[in-house]
């Protein structure tokens, strides 16, 4: 089945300030992702996989090449347009959960969707139930376990119904049992929501469960 191209990375290079360009994080990286599909990015610590995810999330700037999301090239966007893109089309799940400590589970779940415009309450109720958070909605993040917190973070991201979900080691802070459960749930829900998934992980096991797998090494993808 031919799918629309959602993410296209073309010849992107990135070099940190003051870094020798010969030793850039990556050079001329190219990658495609169709709507509704998933891709896993693996690599050693410091190989630059998180950085590539940040570039795709319009959180960071690249030096050359182009990244297009849903037909929009990132290189020409100013801060406001990048913010709008993140607000409406892209959601992120981080290793450290990054919940808002002063908001309850329910408020956290709703936050990105409300920022994006119109929350789909039915979908969010479904998400809450499926993520097993229905009894925890009035709690604050500090009152949750790590696994619960990450489920809130995943729920918050998916509540937006993003076209692209970016996840950076989402289970990196969890023990093995919790990790497997959260990952199962996430993949299932991503699939249901129809979002494309760009997952950074160091675990080959997890990577193998996705549609495709790319390895980043010495600044090149393979």
């Amino acid at each position, binding site marked *: 089945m031919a799918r629309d191209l959602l993410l296209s990375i073309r010849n992107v290079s990135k070099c940190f300030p003051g870094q020798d360009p010969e030793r850039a994080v990556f050079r001329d990286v190219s990658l495609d992702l169709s709507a509704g599909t998933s891709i896993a990015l693996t690599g050693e610590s410091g190989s630059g996989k998180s950085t590539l995810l940040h570039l795709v999330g319009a959180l960071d700037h690249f030096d050359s090449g182009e990244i297009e999301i849903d037909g929009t090239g990132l290189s020409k966007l100013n801060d406001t347009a990048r*913010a709008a893109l993140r607000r409406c089309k892209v959601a992120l799940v981080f290793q450290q959960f990054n919940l808002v400590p002063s908001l309850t589970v329910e408020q956290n779940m709703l936050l990105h969707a*409300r920022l994006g415009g119109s929350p789909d309450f039915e979908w969010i109720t479904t998400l809450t139930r499926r993520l097993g958070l229905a009894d925890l909605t009035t709690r604050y993040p500090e009152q949750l376990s790590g696994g619960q917190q990450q489920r809130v973070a995943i729920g918050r991201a998916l509540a937006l119904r993003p076209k692209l979900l970016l996840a950076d080691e989402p289970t990196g802070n969890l023990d093995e049992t919790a990790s497997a459960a959260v990952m199962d749930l996430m993949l299932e829900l991503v699939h249901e929501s129809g979002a494309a998934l760009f997952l950074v992980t160091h675990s080959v096991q997890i990577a193998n469960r996705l549609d495709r797998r790319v390895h980043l090494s010495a600044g090149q993808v393979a």
Partner: protein
Amino acid sequence: MRRAALGALLSHWRRHPLQLMTLITGLALATGLWSAVQAINGEARAGYAQAAAQLGGTGFDVLLPSDGHISVSRYVMLRREGWLLAPVLEGRWHLQQGSVKLIGVDLLSHPELPAMPTSAVPPLDTLTSPGRIFLHPNTMDQLVEQPNLPPITLTENLPTGVVLSDISLAEQLLQQQGKISRLIILPDQPMGLKPLKVLAPELHRHSSDSPQAARLTDSFHLNLTAFGLLSFAVGLFIVHGSVGLGIEQRRGLFRTLRAMGVSLRLLTTLLLCELMLIALLAGSIGLVLGYLVAAALLPDVSATLIGLYGATVEGSLSLRASWLLSGVGMALFGTLVASAQAISNIYNMPLLVAPGVQARAGVARSSQLKMATIGCGLMVSGVAAVLLFDGLIAGFTLLAGIMLGAALILPLLLSGLLKIGSYTARSALAEWIWADMRAQLPGISLALMALLLALATNIGVGTMVSSFRLTFLGWMDQRLSAEIYVTAQSDQQAADLTKWLTKRGVTTLPIRWSEVPHQGSPLRIYGVVDHATYRDKWPVLQALPNAWDHVAAGSAAMINEQLARRQNLWPGDVLTLKPDWQMTVAGVYSDYGNPHEQVIVSLPVLLERMDNIPNRQFGLRLDPEDVPELMNNIRETFVSPSISVIDQAGIKARSLAVFDRTFVVTGALNLLTLGVAGFAILTSLLTLWNMRLPQLAPIWALGITRRKLAWLELLRSLALATLTTLLALPLGLILAWALLSIINVEAFGWKLPMYVFPMDWLRLLLLALLAAAVAAAIPARKLARIKPAELLKVFAHER
């Protein structure tokens, strides 16, 4: 979207109500102290302006004689030349009970006189014999027993102690027929006049008929304003601290929001909105606070102004729109200034990477240098101001320059001191402590600067007041040398009393005085008899040899320090009292608690030169043991209730009470400022707390217990406070010196010797340590009880 983002931002305060309270308290305190001072000043100024306006003639130029009076014929001559002028005769009207200021105006030429209500009184009545006098109901007490009074109209529109009448009545009551004190130059003069300089070269044109009280009290209000600004500045340190804390703790939130697509511009705008909301709330609370403080202090201010300058200010406070606006405006402005740095940090905050602690330290060091350079500049310009210019403003410029300059130099100085301290470290832990203190400096230096300012002010003002008080006490011992002071009701009663006393072998020293107009204001001249009391005990600052012999011989006069400084007259110079009356200055004596100029001549000379000098006040010299008995005897023999007898101790107690009341306001503001500074340290340490965990966790991991770490926290805070106090000491002494030798001379006309009070410093050091300890106690307690998991988190993830 905006609502969702603002909601997320504000949810922080809901979860941290204490922090919100700190922010609001700091801002409310700053606004409150500032607006309290503004309210007091505004009330007083309005009081002066109203009093001046009621008497008419404000805003007009006046013609003053260089010495003595203007004659009516001179006035008529100028009118006949076409000049439109209004004559005013002003003088002291001696009553049975004390005296009042009597102002006589020509009703036909004087500008509008709101003080004279015409609705109730037949208008021509005031002009027709026996005339009519106008006065405030409070003044009436003094006139109750006065015989042969003209008809009286009471009006609220005159200050207490001032009586207004037509000039025809005034010249009779003052016994100054044909004399005029000043001429008001009216607007809309006719065309083609000869210049006044040609017509009347002996008269001097003064730019405005501003009331003397306003000029004298300016210094007092400038003083209060300086205090208000200082308190405001100290309060802003708190705001800076809590805004910094609120932003520091939400760094994660800001990143998350931005990752979810809230643009930087929107985030900054929302933060500003949030701050303005808080500023409005805190500003309103501050206004209420300011109103209460002002209402509490105003009676003392009013008493001070009456006691010191004779200026009447109502003891009640009224709300003014300008005051409300300026209070809220200051709150908004202050919040913006205090949070500018934090907001700009957010604006420049990278989306992804937490700023490295090392990088921040580097920035801090260079900014310390920059601040110290600016500080040196400020100090130099303050000193330059006082060297180049005279006057109160130059004095305050010096103070501001030195104080702010010193505050700006403080971080570099402390850093240097800590570095030197680190050389003494023998153990690894000690090395860490010294290094850590230096690393902590940038975060806490603002609070320490606030503490420095508050402490230095406290030392400076405290030294000034205590020196003044000590000097004042000594001076009273010299000046009030008679054992008993008596005021009789009439000259006749006084004569009887003198005879009666002489029979009992008691020496009576008459206290008699008269006033001559001198440079537009009355100059009081006392006549004294030649007596050992003056020769031995009078508080003379500088004198010719055998000064009192010259005075007794009638050729010389003693003048007070105020006159000497203002007119630059010193022993040997010639003083012109009236055109035909010149005197050599034999000596200068100190005369505290009196802003006016004063002269002492020998009594026979005074009686020869001046008429109608009442003779009702005496000082009595006798054996101190006989005082109670004689006082009783006088009271029994002269039954009249109006004869007033007071012994030396009584009069000293009264004077001291007036003195102490004068400095109640200063003391209160002083204490409040110190309290605010203590609060500033607390908020700074709370702010730092959050940033300190990553620095403490490794030390904990290396085997130092949390308890020990907590103690070290406390110790560090105390050490920094001690260092700051030590540095505040010289600054405070410089401040005291400036207040005593520059500000006092300009404001009051006297210079005071400086006394130091080391015990006070010790007390202040303890107070500062207490403040630092209390402030450090909360974070330290937190540290002692922190869960190891919290510390472990530091290693688990970057913040």
